[in-house]
C-alpha cells in the first residue's frame, strides 16, 4: 500500500500527482498575488501553526494548509486551507483543479495520525451546505459554537476520516 495525494483537472478529470511539503517563505509570499488571503499575516505566522504546501511535480502550488495540534492530544485543528486562485471556488467558477479541499483535509488526518491524535481533526465548515455534507456524508460531529455568529465547528474521525484519507491509498 502506498499513499499518493492527487487532484484532478476540472476540465478533463485527469489526475495530477501532488507532493505535500512544509511551506517555505517564498510559498507563503506567493499568496500576495491574487490569493484569497495573505499567508504572511500575523495569524498565519503563528509558529504553533504548521504550514504545508501542496505542489505538482512541476512545482505549481495548488494549495496551502495550516494545521495545529490541540493542547490535550485530542485532535488536530485544520486552522485554514486555501486553494490556489485558479482552483478556489470562492474566486472562480471554472476551476483548474478539483478535489483540492478533500486532499488538504486528508493531509490533516495524516498529521493527526502521525502525531498520535488518532486521525481526529477539527475544523470550521465554510458554508451551511458543506456543514450538512460533512455531517451527513462523513459522519462529522458538530461542536457547540460558543461565539454568536461564529463558524460552525465540526469534529471528524473514524470512518469519515478513513473515507477521506482512503481515497489516496493505493
Amino acid at each position, binding site marked *: 500500500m502506498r499513499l499518493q495525494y492527487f487532484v484532478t483537472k476540472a476540465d478533463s478529470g485527469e489526475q495530477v500527482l501532488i507532493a505535500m511539503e512544509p511551506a517555505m517563505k517564498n510559498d507563503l509570499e506567493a499568496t500576495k498575488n491574487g490569493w484569497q*488571503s495573505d499567508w504572511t499575516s500575523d*495569524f498565519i505566522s*503563528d509558529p504553533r501553526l504548521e504550514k504545508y504546501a501542496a505542489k505538482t511535480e512541476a512545482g505549481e502550488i495548488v494549495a496551502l494548509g495550516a494545521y*495545529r495540534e*490541540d*493542547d*490535550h*492530544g*485530542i*485532535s488536530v*485543528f*485544520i*486552522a*485554514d*486551507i486555501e*486553494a490556489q486562485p485558479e482552483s478556489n*471556488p*470562492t474566486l472562480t467558477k471554472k*476551476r483548474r483543479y*478539483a*478535489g*483540492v*479541499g*478533500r486532499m488538504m*483535509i486528508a493531509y490533516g488526518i495524516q498529521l493527526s495520525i502521525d502525531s498520535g491524535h488518532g486521525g*481526529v481533526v*477539527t*475544523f*470550521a*465548515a*465554510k*458554508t451551511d*451546505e*458543506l456543514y450538512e*455534507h*460533512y455531517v451527513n456524508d462523513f459522519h462529522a*460531529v458538530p*461542536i*457547540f459554537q*460558543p*461565539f454568536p455568529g*461564529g*463558524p460552525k*465547528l465540526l*469534529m471528524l*474521525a*473514524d470512518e469519515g476520516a478513513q473515507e477521506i484519507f482512503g481515497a489516496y491509498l493505493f
Partner: protein
Amino acid sequence: MAEQELQVARMDEETMEYLNVLFSVCKRFNTDYYHADPKQRAFMDAVATHEYQLKKAHEKGLQRSAVPPFMGIVRSERSNNMPA
C-alpha cells in the same frame, strides 16, 4: 452530480483557544467527544463554555459575577465577589 468541493473556513485564535478548553474538559471527565451521546456532549459544551468564560474574565481581572452562573446556580454574594 459533480462531487461537492470540500472547503473549510479559517479557524480564528479565539476558537482554537475555546477548543483547547473543551478538550481539556473532555480529558478531565474522560469523555470521548466524538463517540459521546448528545447529553454527554451537551454537558461537555456547557462546562467548557463556562470555564472559557471564567478564563477570559480571570485574564481581565474581573470578579466571578462577570460570568453567568453555571446552569442557573444561585451564587452567594461572597462567591460573586471572588476573582473569576
